[in-house]
């Protein structure tokens, strides 16, 4: 499935303090089958595209700062500073330190969940029955919770480090009384979401089913992943300007990277 293999990680600091990639644009492409997991460290300035090839995919994802693993994706901070329950284009994904791991620069899906967590071995057993490795080899029914433990463990992370993750392509709405409603029709074939990384980020991901998916069989949906160089962030960037909070988030991230100007309040950038 690997179609291109010429990723050039070299980068330079562009005028204005943003990182721009060198011109050899792509990159790397791969397909992660349904019910699998992977992890990678992504540099600032990289664009990561997730594509739901068949429809109905779910991608669980967590972010950590590889230089300080205590800094991690914080869903409550991300939601409350953007006054949103869902994630979509224009939103920035924040660490607990007020910095932006990545921005959602494109999204054909419109609604991604970040409050329902992972499916577990127990839920899989109750819903579909467990397929073991012994009987089914790599078609076993892996679960998102254990998938994060495996990928996180490779970097020294464990149970204490788990946090509320993103579930890309999965829509869970909330009714007036607070009840959760999983919308199985949300994830369309070919839907994609583009993440532009604003700082170096450890990405843990899995393609296990959403915990509220009650499909008749364990859904095993492949996801294409493409890495390329993102265009430099311009001053009129949609994500950065979508809310005054995001201007400040970008200022915090620039300050951390040591290449931005740091002024006060909403006028900073």
């Amino acid at each position, binding site marked *: 499935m690997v179609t291109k293999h010429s990723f050039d990680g070299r980068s330079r600091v562009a005028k204005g303090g943003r990182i721009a990639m060198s011109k050899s644009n792509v990159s790397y492409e791969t397909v992660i089958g349904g019910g699998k997991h992977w992890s990678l460290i992504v540099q600032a300035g990289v664009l990561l595209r997730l594509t739901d090839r068949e429809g109905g995919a779910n991608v669980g994802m967590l972010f950590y700062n590889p230089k300080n693993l*205590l800094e991690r994706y914080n869903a409550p901070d991300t939601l409350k500073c953007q*006054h*949103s329950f869902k994630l979509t284009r224009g939103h920035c994904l924040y660490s607990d330190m*007020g910095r932006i791991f990545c921005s959602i620069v494109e999204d054909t899906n419109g609604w991604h969940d970040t*409050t329902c967590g992972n499916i577990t071995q127990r839920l899989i057993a109750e819903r579909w029955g467990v397929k073991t490795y012994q009987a089914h080899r790599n078609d076993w029914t892996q679960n998102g*919770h254990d998938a994060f433990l495996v990928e996180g463990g490779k970097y020294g992370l464990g*149970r204490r480090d788990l946090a509320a993750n993103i579930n890309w392509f999965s829509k869970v709405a909330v009714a007036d009384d*607070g009840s959760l409603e999983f919308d199985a029709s949300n994830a369309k074939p070919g839907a994609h979401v583009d993440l532009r990384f604003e700082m170096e980020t450890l990405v843990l991901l899995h393609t296990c089913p959403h915990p509220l998916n009650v499909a008749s069989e364990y859904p095993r949906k492949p996801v294409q992943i493409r890495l390329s160089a993102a265009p430099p962030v311009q001053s009129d960037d949609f994500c950065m300007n979508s809310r005054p909070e995001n201007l400040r*988030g970008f*200022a915090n991230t620039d300050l951390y990277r040591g290449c931005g100007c740091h002024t006060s309040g909403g006028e900073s950038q």
Partner: protein
Amino acid sequence: MKRYSDLLPGEAVFRRIVPAGDYWIDTLRRGQRLRIVDVEGNQAADTLFFNAADVADRYSAVDTIRAQGNVYLSCGSKLLSTAGNVLAEIVADTVGRHDTLGGACASESNTVRYDLEKRTMHACRDSFVLALAQHDGYGLGKRDLSHNINFFMNVPVTPEGGLTFADGLSGPGEYVEMRAATDVIVLISNCPQLNNPCNAYNPTPLEVLIWDADVP
């Protein structure tokens, strides 16, 4: 759902006022009941629970709301751990709705939400970190600070996917009470946030009370 408790404050085995902006940490034994009182009204109590027998197994907001199929906590809500164990259950609640989506305020998130120059304002996360440093016998640290409950806070979600911080539903003397399903460490930050209406711009005291197990 609102439900009053029949426990009498005079029979509590422990009573403590938690001043605005302070923290409280202690261990609750299985079967004990913990009541948190919003003494003057409109005060957020940022609360975390840890399984005392296995502190890596701690309160999980996402597992709790997914299992009950609802984002709001109230009477009957079982507070689940990351491993799916029930840590405590809310058994009385005079308010009717509590938040577990909004997390704790932090100096760093304040810079994003309000102003970069507000980074030195007191915040719940600082209280949590200090509590764990001053009580390091628990073996807990920043990595254990996951997404908490905000008792007495009202954070409505709209059907369109919006999130709002509304005026609190709580008032003077309102309370929430839970029964420990196992031995749990409880960590509360009495929220010092001054930038939004979660504390009515005037943080005030909380009171915690504990009663011994009502069943052997």
